[in-house]
């Protein structure tokens, strides 16, 4: 998937496994499933807080934001990661993503 490979894979790896205890996995990630409504803002703004994914604490590496991805690109990206590598996330619409993005500052 072009957007994933271009924007995400250098850190999270093409197989979605992340990087040891430094960069969390997206593949088979419990965080992905429990934070469906936060994904759009995380992708756009990045993340600089401590998170726990599959019982591993990730607290050293900030995730950068992706200003260059518009609402549609973020929708496509989320639908990709929600269903890649055996992930079983929901299918999202651009309307939902736009609504999620409107709440980034809340």
């Amino acid at each position: 998937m072009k957007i994933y490979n271009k924007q995400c894979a250098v850190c999270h790896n093409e197989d979605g496994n992340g990087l040891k205890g430094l960069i969390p996995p997206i593949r088979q990630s419990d965080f992905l499933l429990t934070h469906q409504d936060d994904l759009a803002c995380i992708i756009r703004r990045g993340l600089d807080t401590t998170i726990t994914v599959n019982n591993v604490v990730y607290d050293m590496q900030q995730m950068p934001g992706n200003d260059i991805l518009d609402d549609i690109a973020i929708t496509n990206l989320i639908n990709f990661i929600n269903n890649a590598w055996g992930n079983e996330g929901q299918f999202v619409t651009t309307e939902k993503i736009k609504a999620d993005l409107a709440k980034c500052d809340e």
Partner: protein
Amino acid sequence: MRKQPRHLLAKSSFFALLFALTLISCGPSDSEPLPVLGRPRFVNGDSIPHTIPDFSFIDQDSQVVNNQTFAGKAYVVDFFFTSCPTICPKTTAQMFRIYKKFENNDGIVLLAHSIDTKYDSVPVLKKYASKLGVKTDKWHFVTGNKDEIYGIADDYFSIAIEDPNSPGGYDHSGRLILIDKNRHIRSFCDGTDAKDVDRFMKDIQKLLDEK
């Protein structure tokens, strides 16, 4: 402002290097040895290749790392800081690929310089290395005198400057640089570009295969 000339110097070295590489890419075949990169100095008519000067830093195990640490070995260098929100996760991920590929080859080690000497103390570097699960002997994460680290970045054709306007407060290049056992630069790549790192790893293998 005082840092600006250094930045420009690094930039101009980079373009000189790019030019040299352009020539190289049109020329020798795969079987020829890697070039010695950088602008040579001329002393009494003799050309002396660009050489990495003496240095001394402290790694994640509080051990001194200097030129002797790498005696008889090739090594790969980068500049990063642990709280870096932009390119460092990428370069670290790519350095990790190199680490895994050459994990059992004693001829090559990795050296990552933190350019955030204020925050990246030895314990912070230790934690970072532990999260990666890497061996200190194979991958040194170092801190040290700030001027010394920023100074040696120039010698490695890398940019390292404090810049309040940059994300995380520092501006730096994500370049990975290959140094041979004679302290000469033999190759480099963009550490944020996995394809370029593929090519770089072939260069590493070629250097290790040199007699």
